[in-house]
């Protein structure tokens, strides 16, 4: 099943590993920051509503 990569197995696997790794990193970073901002915004909005409610 696994293709025979011949002499260049290291190179091909390294290229795939590095690229997919980088893509995963940027996706995870974006998602983490997105979630953090969303939570922060909710907190701030709640505080604002509480302050105006008084």
């Amino acid at each position, binding site marked *: 099943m696994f293709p025979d990569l011949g002499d260049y197995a290291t190179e091909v696997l390294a*290229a795939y590993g590095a690229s*997919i790794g980088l*893509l995963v990193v940027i996706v995870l970073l974006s998602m983490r920051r997105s979630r953090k901002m969303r939570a922060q915004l909710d907190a*701030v909005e709640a*505080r604002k509503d509480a302050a105006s409610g008084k």
Partner: protein
Amino acid sequence: MSIWEYANPKKFIATTTPLVPWVMGISISCLVVGLVWGFFFTPDDFRQGSTVKIIYLHVPAALMAINAWFMMLIASLIWLVRRHHVSALAARAAAPIGMVMTVIALITGAIWGQPMWGTWWAWDPRLTSFLILFLFYLGYMALWEAIEDSDTAADLTSVLCLVGSVFAVLSRYAVQFWNQGLHQGTSVPVATGERSVSDVFFVPLLVCMVGFGLLFLALVLMRTATEVRARRIKALEARMR
């Protein structure tokens, strides 16, 4: 009904948030299909051996690296002309993704170049242009980080993006001129672009390009929404103080 309605941050978030998982899902399935197809089910090239498989990462990444800058240029123009905040923030959101794409293109290129050209790095016009593009991304992001007032930052980075685009194109031609000037007669074996690729390789490559494009779109939408929220937090906190 016009496209400018989406310049309203609230409307933008409301419309794009449900879209993001879908776009992300399609892009990841495209990437999985394209990469698995390319990795497992395409034959080796008779000259390049199995290193030809790197093309499925290298070419789409390079494509998106340039298109990301192009998208930033358009977003900057829209911001300068029509003053829609979402546009400026979209440009900011795209820059890190474009930079990652540039890095992927450079790394995969270097890994491919090592067995094929016998060197990790050659001062070939294309390689050099990408290095310069990488520097432009760095400078652009650094300027965003350095300026506190967000509207000022958006204006200045937009101006930089416009001027930078002109110089990036200029550098591209200058670099071509420079290398030909130094190495007359020698032909640096430039990667065979998709033009000269046969269908066996081209179809999975196309799938990968679509995957990369959609991934870029999903990330930009997500990050733009993040930036909009970050700005709203800043505004609310300033008001409450």
